[in-house]
């Protein structure tokens, strides 16, 4: 058991140790300073030349959003039509069929928004073409979209009175060429040498030692798995994601993949410190995020390692903890740790089935996604956190009787309205979405859909409610993990979560960018004795309190009906 604890402590420390220099590097890249990856510059020039882009043309915040929404719109249509006709497109060695319109709608939105909720299984529901040319492409560009939006906010926070917030295309391309692609390349090579397939050969048929016939799905998976982790995407090649022994063959790959899940998200916090030259502020943000993260990690690991009391009552031993839905090569501690890292970061890949985890783990995982800002998804995690900062500045300003200011700009009614709306959007989507699903389940149990509502749930009672709550939460948080027992490939879930995913992605990008853009145009007020200091531990506690009050408390009643009730009823 000791080696399991050492394994996760190592994973976390290694992540932070890598994140600090990586953050510095990211700040350098977007500052236009020299870095050792400057050999990518000719490739970037070629991309700009081909696309007719002038990377030095400055954009204001509205132009940034127009560019972002235009290109995302294109990707959505491209993805949707590829999925609708994937059966006839090339690279389909396993002869998998087209996706149905509602499934294609859900899947396209899901990958476009960095969510990667998968209502299909990769082995039978996608082709090598759609895996590589739709999913993996969107893995890269959706992560880059998040980083680009975040860079707009960074620049708006730094430069005094400005409409010049850099070039969106430049941010997008550099996020890929300088960060996501090189990092994914390294991870993919490590995975390949540990047994993850890379070739384009289709299924293999094997007669096993005992004499059974089995078909083994393969494919060029290593490349995709690398970016799915580094870009906090989470949508895997195979249906069971990183629990699959090809996606995650051993403990070494588990370490590499799990570090990749949170690495960029953490390093972006440090990037903020270097980019704004406000390292103390970065440490305050990191401190708040880490506190939230640790509060979730410990109970989950404790619950999984201690095992399932209902199984203990059957009289067998649980030396390896609760093992339903888990793999022997990872064990309960690393599975619980992954479960928390993947939900705090909006990654959503899994190395064990969350549906079978203990209720305390489910509580922690859902809570992570409801906050969605403890590290958070690449780029967008910080955007969510930025909203909480604005609210915290405003509230503490009122409390101590000072004008609320952040980074030398007054925060006034207009910004506060946007921030409040965005902060309330997430609870609204989750609670209304879950309520709608519950209503349909109770009142239309026999509706004639691909799966009747009465057959949606894989588990009875409180856990069944958790399956629905988890699905909507994961959609709104753009996470993509699921309580996979829920039969979600039918028109109700495909369409409802499709809309939740879409709204839950783009409004929380538009809001912070707008606030930052508006603030950047305001008069700069130099710091004085009357300014509320934002880079102190006191302010960190204030942010934490705002997160708990605004986000957490709105979800408490729903969580009580699901994991909390299950925890107290399990025997």
């Amino acid at each position, binding site marked *: 058991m000791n*080696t399991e604890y050492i*394994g996760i402590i190592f994973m976390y420390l290694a992540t932070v140790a890598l994140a600090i220099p990586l953050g510095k590097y990211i700040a350098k890249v977007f500052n236009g300073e020299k870095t050792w990856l400057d050999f990518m510059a000719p490739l970037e020039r070629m991309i700009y030349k*081909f696309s*007719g*882009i002038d990377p030095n043309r400055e954009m204001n915040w509205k132009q940034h959003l*127009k560019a972002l929404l*235009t*290109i995302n719109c294109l990707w959505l249509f491209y993805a949707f039509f590829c999925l609708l006709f994937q059966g006839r497109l090339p690279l389909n060695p396993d002869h998998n069929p087209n996706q149905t319109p509602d499934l294609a709608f859900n899947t396209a939105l899901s990958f476009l928004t960095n969510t990667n909720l998968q209502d299909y299984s990769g082995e039978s529901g996608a082709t090598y073409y759609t895996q590589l040319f739709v999913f993996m492409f969107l893995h890269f*560009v959706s992560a880059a979209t998040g980083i680009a939006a975040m860079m707009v906010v960074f620049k708006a926070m730094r430069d005094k009175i400005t409409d010049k917030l850099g070039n969106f*295309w430049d941010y*997008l391309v550099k996020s*890929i060429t300088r960060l996501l*692609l090189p990092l994914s*390349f390294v991870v*993919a090579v490590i995975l*390949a*040498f540990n*047994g993850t397939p*890379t*070739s384009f050969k289709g*299924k293999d048929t*094997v007669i*096993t*030692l005992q004499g*059974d016939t*089995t*078909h*083994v*799905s393969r494919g*060029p998976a290593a*490349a995709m798995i690398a970016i799915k982790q580094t870009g906090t995407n989470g949508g895997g090649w195979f249906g*069971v994601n990183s*629990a699959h*022994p*090809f996606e995650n063959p051993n*403990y070494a790959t588990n370490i590499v993949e799990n570090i990749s899940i949170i690495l960029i998200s953490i390093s972006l916090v440090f990037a903020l410190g270097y980019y704004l030259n406000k390292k103390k502020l970065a440490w305050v943000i990191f401190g708040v995020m880490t506190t939230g993260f640790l509060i979730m990690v410990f109970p989950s690991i404790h619950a999984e390692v201690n095992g399932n009391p209902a*199984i203990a009552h*059957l009289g*067998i*031993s*649980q030396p390896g*903890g*609760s*093992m*339903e*839905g*888990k*793999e*022997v*090569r*990872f064990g309960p501690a690393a599975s619980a740790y992954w479960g928390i890292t993947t939900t705090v970061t909006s990654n959503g890949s899994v190395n064990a*089935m969350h*549906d079978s985890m203990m209720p305390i783990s489910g509580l922690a995982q859902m809570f992570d996604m409801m906050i969605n800002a403890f590290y958070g998804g690449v780029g967008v995690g910080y955007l969510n956190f930025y909203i909480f900062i604005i609210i915290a500045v405003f509230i503490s300003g009122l409390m101590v009787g000072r004008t609320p200011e952040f980074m030398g700009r007054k925060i006034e009614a207009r910004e506060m309205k946007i921030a409040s709306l965005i902060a309330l959007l997430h609870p609204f989507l989750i609670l209304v979405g879950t309520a709608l699903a519950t209503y349909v389940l109770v009142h239309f149990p026999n509706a004639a859909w691909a799966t009747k509502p009465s057959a949606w749930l*894989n*588990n009875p009672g409180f*856990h069944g409610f958790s399956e629905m709550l988890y699905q909507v939460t994961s959609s709104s948080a753009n996470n993509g993990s699921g*309580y*996979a*027992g829920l039969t979600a490939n039918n028109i109700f879930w495909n369409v409802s979560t499709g809309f939740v995913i879409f709204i839950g992605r783009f409004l929380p990008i538009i809001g912070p960018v707008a606030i930052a853009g508006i603030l950047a145009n305001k008069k700069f007020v130099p710091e004085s004795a009357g300014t509320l200091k934002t880079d102190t531990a006191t302010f960190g506690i204030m942010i934490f309190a705002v997160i708990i009050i605004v986000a957490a408390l709105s979800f408490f009643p729903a969580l009580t009906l699901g994991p909390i009730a299950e925890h107290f009823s*399990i025997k």
Partner: protein
Amino acid sequence: MKTYIAPALKLSLILIVILSGLYPLAIAAIGKFTPGHGDGETVTYKGRVVGYANIGQKFTKDQYFWSRPSAANYQADAGAGSNKGPSNPDYIKDVKARIDTFLKHNPDIKREEIPAELVTASGSGLDPNLSPAGARVQVARIAKIRNIPAEQVVKIIDDHTENPLFGLFGPPKVNVLKLNVALDELKR
């Protein structure tokens, strides 16, 4: 909007070529130099490929080490977990039935010696491993049916135990397929 469509289209096109074309091809080329040549590493017995080292397979016969229960019946083109919640009464019944089956086939074993992994389904449904303890509780049955000394079976387990990474990280484990190949090789 209009001014953004043309660059967006062209940028998407060239990024697709680089990210979805060149990048996976480069990884595939590097994959050729890996142990399984990028196709997945296989295990052979008497010159026949009997499976993939990393992909678990079904072992239910008494002369073999059993694999863990699988919600996918070890079909490696449709891996799946059971997704049963820990409080689900039907699930607890399933586990109970598996315990009874195990005790019937392993009469020398006491109930409290059975590790949970042998009666719970894995996340992938393709778990290739057991903990060393999960293999050891099966020694008596295998030794009896194969008519070989128990020490010989224990030795196979010890020889095939994969220790934690660098002796530090993660749980120890054994690969069930490799154990069973070693058992069959004893006969020769």
